């Protein structure tokens, strides 16, 4: 399953002010599934202490090298951003339960809804769906164009299947990303064929869940975030409230980070 190892930084590319694409060598590592993540140790000292969880954004077929797309938000990601080609990173991967691709076929349509850097796991998913020839539309939202400075690779790969919305209208449609999604659902090819996948801030996930449930429920998988200590299920620190089931809580790191909408309270 997962393993701990040291990999070399193969490349580290700034994308705008705040984003980076980091590629780390992982020869012979098990193939990751979209939605899985890695726990990266940042720095060599005891502060910061914890690994930082980052979704797998892409995995190279031949070499197994892992790509991450991340935003510099605090101490840990700032330290991470100092890594240079050839430096070593200690990471654990692949962690967590990824997206379920069950029931997806060329006859279904996948709707991927990403808020900001929530695009990372969904881009990996999109790549797999393309291989399986599942038609898809990728909705990508942010506050301003600068929040989507990483979009180059995604835009290049997805072409017309990418729909962008920004709150200030500086890129793509103006407004929340759930606007174009709603239109698509209202006007699109019929809800029955649709499968929803979402990753982003909690309010966005709640709105996507609402849209998924009103008028003929659409299966929705969401990728959640939580503060993590271990990332592999041992500490019970990362739980989110369960909806239904025996246990009141579920571990985001192992039972998630991808959940079906009905499994957790959003």
């Amino acid at each position, binding site marked *: 399953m997962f393993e701990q190892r040291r990999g070399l930084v193969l490349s580290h590319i700034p994308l705008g002010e705040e984003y980076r694409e980091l590629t780390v060598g992982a020869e012979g590592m098990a193939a990751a599934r979209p939605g899985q993540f890695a726990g990266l140790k940042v720095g060599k000292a*005891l502060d910061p202490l*914890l690994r930082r969880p980052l979704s797998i954004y892409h995995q190279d077929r031949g070499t197994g090298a892992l790509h991450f797309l991340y935003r510099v938000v605090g101490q840990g990601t700032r330290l991470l951003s100092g890594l240079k080609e050839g430096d070593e990173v200690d990471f654990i991967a692949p962690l967590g339960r990824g997206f379920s691709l069950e029931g997806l076929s060329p006859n279904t349509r996948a709707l991927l809804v990403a808020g900001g850097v929530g695009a990372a796991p969904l881009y990996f998913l999109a790549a797999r769906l393309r291989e399986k020839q599942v038609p898809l539309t990728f909705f990508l939202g942010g506050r301003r164009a600068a929040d989507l400075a990483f979009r180059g690779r995604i835009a290049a790969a997805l072409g017309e299947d990418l729909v962008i919305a920004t709150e200030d209208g500086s890129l793509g449609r103006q407004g929340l990303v759930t606007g174009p999604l709603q239109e698509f659902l209202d006007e699109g090819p019929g809800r029955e064929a649709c499968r929803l996948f979402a990753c982003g801030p909690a309010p966005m996930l709640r709105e996507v869940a609402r849209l998924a449930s009103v008028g003929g429920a659409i299966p929705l998988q969401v990728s959640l975030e939580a*503060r993590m*200590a271990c990332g592999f299920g041992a500490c019970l620190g990362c739980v989110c*409230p369960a909806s239904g089931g025996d246990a009141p809580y579920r571990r985001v790191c*192992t039972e998630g980070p991808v959940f079906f909408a009905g499994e957790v309270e959003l």
Partner: protein
Amino acid sequence: MTGKIPRPDMTVKIGSLTLENPVLTAAGCFGFGREFAEFLDLNSLGAIVVKGTTLRPRGGNPPPRLGEVPAGLLNAIGLQNPGVDRVMAEELPRLKGLKPPIIVNVAGETPEEYVETARRLALSPPAAALEVNISCPNVARGGMAFGTCPLQVETLVRAVRQVFPRTLIVKLTPNVTDIRETARAAAAGGADALSLINTLTGMAIDIEGQVPLLANVTGGLSGPALRPVAVRMVWQVAETVDIPIIGMGGIASAKDALEFLLAGASAVAIGTAGLVDPSVFGRVQAGLEAYLVHRGIPRLEEICGLARRNWKRNMPAKQVRENG
């Protein structure tokens, strides 16, 4: 005459248990061993201390349960566990075949719960020992109350002692004015060994949300930040009681483990550092062995408490008294 240097004897005795090596897992930081089996050979451990177990199942505290603090971790898991019956039915049998003894960490909200949990575990042979956690700071009733009053500690330990015939370890809280008093009480109640320390109660504020960071408000501080307090308490207790001490609190390297052993611990446990870096168990074991080999010390036992013996020898007589 190119004699091989013999490997040092790493065994330690805790109650009636003989451990192959002195490196244990800390309760609540190793689950029931499942997850760590991905990273390491569980048979390489000195003993496996499993998650805090209560009489009834507990759902634990609402999230957020974790906060990162300088060189440390705040947690308020709230003793989430499936309850003793399911632990005995599902978890312990899975661990039965392993070489290292299994030590079950036990908690409760009332003395009766502790006793009943211990009574049931006495019937489960894989539970080679109990570690009675009278120190969990996250449970509103229970936990703290027992752990800070010496009289209650003694009474509780005596009651558990009566129902559990195998090795009985008592885990003390550092949130007290004088840990020697609770240590004495646990020994008087019949403990075979002491584990110290559990977490210090701490908290953090979310300055954006302007509320406590943890849903539970306070949490337990673990990790390297805790280590100086833990080493001090091991030092103090080692002089106070005659039973072995399992030292823990912020161990992340062989050097850290050596501090505890030299201060008077017979064994060590690793919690938070293992969550962050599962390879720490192997590194600490190897580092301890290398330390002994390098100094030509044949048995690990010889370094336990050595810092105190050296200190007493070196000090002018009048200075040999406890400071602070």
